[in-house]
């Protein structure tokens, strides 16, 4: 088993599409992407399954396509989690180092981690992740305190929890295809993993994945994920704003206008600058002012970023986000979106780039979550650089992120 190549399907049940990327793990170390299946999703609104039957049908279809393109059965699935029902809290714990010589032992480590995670959850909630923040030993930040000398050990966790039934819905959709869900991974963490290097995470970075129905964000600092969150606003909101604001009765028309003429920053001031609605000069085609389109999309973008910033609260300190804001997700293709992000977050912003080895057909921003689902599990970063210390950390990481379905 250990030496067999394992086929893992990374499944993201998104609001606009279902993506399945098949990765082949050789000896649990190296990863190659061998298959892709995707289809427009139905029965998913703002990241949550609302119509089980419809959602199942399209997820199963995407899984079939993926297996077909990989040419083999998928052994297990890593499933992305998003949606407004996710919530998080932080919890901290500290222990005195027990040994007489003040050397931190593995037992101390276990103790403090268990204490920090012991917070009770409200009824009907289930833990998705315990995200460990860096250890502190006598107040000083240490990546791995074992065998170090100190008196007081502290650790903080960001615990992400979600509605039990919503999470179960997602898992049942996959189980219906008769394949095991090995891991549940937060969409934001997955995208974050795909879009940042360990260096970015060390320096501090904010990753925003703007999908169709939700915006998932994760804040990295000191190499660890400090905070994650979901804002149930995405590309569809931009489209809806446009269709109401421009009085269009067709979401498709609004969607097209958004893609071609939308902008995250209102640039056009010229009221005479107009664009055609359909561009085919047929009956019903009319002209719309570009300024109006930009005004609507810019207002939404700005508000979205402001909501994220408010949700981060005091944890967001621009001076500690040296790697800046990294944007990804399908809706990040909006023009000038990095300018708007830079304005709101007061740090440089850029569009996320997947690792260099990812093939061209998977480099679109819409794939970053699915890619991250595979990378997340890889333990070691694919570049192999800066990995010297990782084995221990990776092992612990894996333990912490084990499935709690």
């Amino acid at each position, binding site marked *: 088993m250990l030496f067999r190549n394992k086929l893992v399907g990374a499944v993201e049940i998104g609001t606009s599409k279902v993506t399945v990327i098949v990765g082949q793990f050789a000896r649990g170390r190296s990863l190659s992407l061998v298959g892709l299946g995707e289809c427009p999703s139905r029965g998913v*609104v*703002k990241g949550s399954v*609302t119509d089980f039957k419809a959602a199942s049908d399209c997820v199963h279809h995407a899984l079939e396509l993926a297996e077909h393109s990989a040419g083999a059965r998928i052994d297990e699935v890593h499933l992305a989690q998003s949606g*407004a029902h996710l919530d998080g809290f932080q919890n901290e714990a500290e222990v005195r180092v027990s040994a007489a010589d003040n050397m931190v032992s593995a037992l101390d480590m276990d103790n403090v981690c268990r204490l920090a995670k012991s917070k009770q959850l409200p009824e009907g909630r289930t833990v998705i992740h315990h995200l460990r923040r860096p250890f502190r030993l006598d107040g000083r930040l240490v990546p791995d305190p074992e065998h170090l000398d100190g008196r007081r050990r502290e650790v903080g966790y960001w615990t992400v929890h979600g509605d039990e039934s919503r999470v179960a819905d997602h898992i049942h959709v996959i189980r219906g295809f008769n394949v095991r869900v090995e891991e549940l991974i937060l969409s934001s963490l997955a995208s974050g993993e795909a879009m940042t290097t360990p260096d970015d995470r060390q320096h501090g970075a904010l990753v925003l994945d703007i999908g169709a129905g939700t915006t998932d964000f994760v804040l990295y600092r000191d190499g660890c994920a400090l905070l994650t969150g979901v*804002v*149930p*606003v995405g590309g*569809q*909101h931009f*489209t*809806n*704003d446009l*269709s*109401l*604001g*421009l*009085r269009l009765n067709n*979401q498709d028309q609004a969607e097209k206008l958004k893609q071609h003429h939308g902008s995250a920053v209102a640039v056009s*001031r010229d*009221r005479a600058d107009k664009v055609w609605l359909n561009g085919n000069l047929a009956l019903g085609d009319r002209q*719309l*002012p570009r*300024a*109006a389109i930009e*005004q*609507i999309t810019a*207002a*939404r973008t*700005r*508000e979205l970023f402001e*909501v994220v910033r*408010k949700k981060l609260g005091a944890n967001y300190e621009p001076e500690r986000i040296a790697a800046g804001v990294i944007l990804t997700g399908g809706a990040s293709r909006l023009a000038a979106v990095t300018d708007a992000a830079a304005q709101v977050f007061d740090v440089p912003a850029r569009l996320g780039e997947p690792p260099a080895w990812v093939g061209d057909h998977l480099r679109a921003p819409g794939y970053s979550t699915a890619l991250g689902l595979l990378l997340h599990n890889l333990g070691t970063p694919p570049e192999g650089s800066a990995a010297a210390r990782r084995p221990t950390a990776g092992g612990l990481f894996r333990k912490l992120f084990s499935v709690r379905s």
Partner: protein
Amino acid sequence: MENHFPPGDLPLAPKILTDRTLAVKVIGVGGAGTNAVDRLKMESLDRLQLAAIDTDHQALSASPLQEKIVIGSAVTHGLSAGGDPALGHDAAEGDTEKIAAAVKGCDLVFLIAGLGGGTGGGAAPVVAKLAAQAGALVIAFCPLPFSFEGGRRLKQADESLRAIRQTCDAVIPLPNDALLQAAAPGETTLNAFARADEWIGRAIKGVWAMLFRTGLINVDFASLSSVFPSRGGKTLFGLGSGEGADPAAAALESLRLCPLLATAESAKKVDRLLVHLTGGADLTMERVNGIMTALTAQFGRDAHVIMGAVIDEALPGRVEIVVLGTSEQGATSRRPLSAQRPRPAPAATATTGGSTPPVSATTAAKPAQDEFAFGGDTASRGYFDNTERNLFEGQDLDVPTWQRQGLKIVL
């Protein structure tokens, strides 16, 4: 009085039906309020009394008005409240006799108070309370600060707005930002404030014309007060004017684009709607009918509609529309319950030719259920109509941002 309603239909208080003349007073509170009243003075509307209340002696002495009241001499020594609503409040509380004397005997008080500052925000709720105690119907116009005036003023304005809603029959917030949308780029600050005042002027002039001019269809004071049966509810207010080949259509179009109606604050469906039309001698019944049909369709077919139309010889080929609507949500009942008993379909809607379904029960009977329907008017959520509400800090994020922020989208 000619009226479209059978007399038993309206919650008329007998004392307002006596034949004494109607006393209507416009009171400006604070700097912004005084400025707006000063501007109204130039319109020289007869039978409209004007007064100003301020803590700032110097600013008040520059005003051309006759009735000027300095309040809070003991608190501020004739200087302004310095942007502190608590100080403004204390100033008004300290001079209640002066204010009570000013509002004595008024039937209708228009309060103009710029919120965000000290006197306007702090004293206006007190003035409103005293006016209401004196038996007047109080309608407040509250310009809200421009965003460029800073977050603190916006926050204060928000708090003051809440306070003033408790004591007035109707509060019409006028977000200066929204009024600015119509402004040309490069407009000076002075013009921007003048434009905001102009909106208040138009509003008050509209209501004044409604009450004092006789015309095609009269609206009397009792009908006006019946629009405001309760306190603390939200008020919808919009103005439109049009001229040209088809002034009625142009006015409707202008009303549709009215920035005051674009804010999420204003409900799109109301329980009571007062419509007032002013037009030239060429205003035909046919046009009135057309406008009313369009308006009832837009603001709620089930609404209790009161309409008035006035002919102004000075406005040939021009139509002006004033709409005032109220909704039950968030309101505390002021008048006896009998005023809110189920009514048959209002005759006015029937005459407009719409196939109005009979009103089965007033919405007043089930305020708890409507609480959510209000403000988050389902129509404005579009694609997200049937999904859970997406609340963040009291705002529904599914409602378009431009709508909540009151951006005017020029098409």
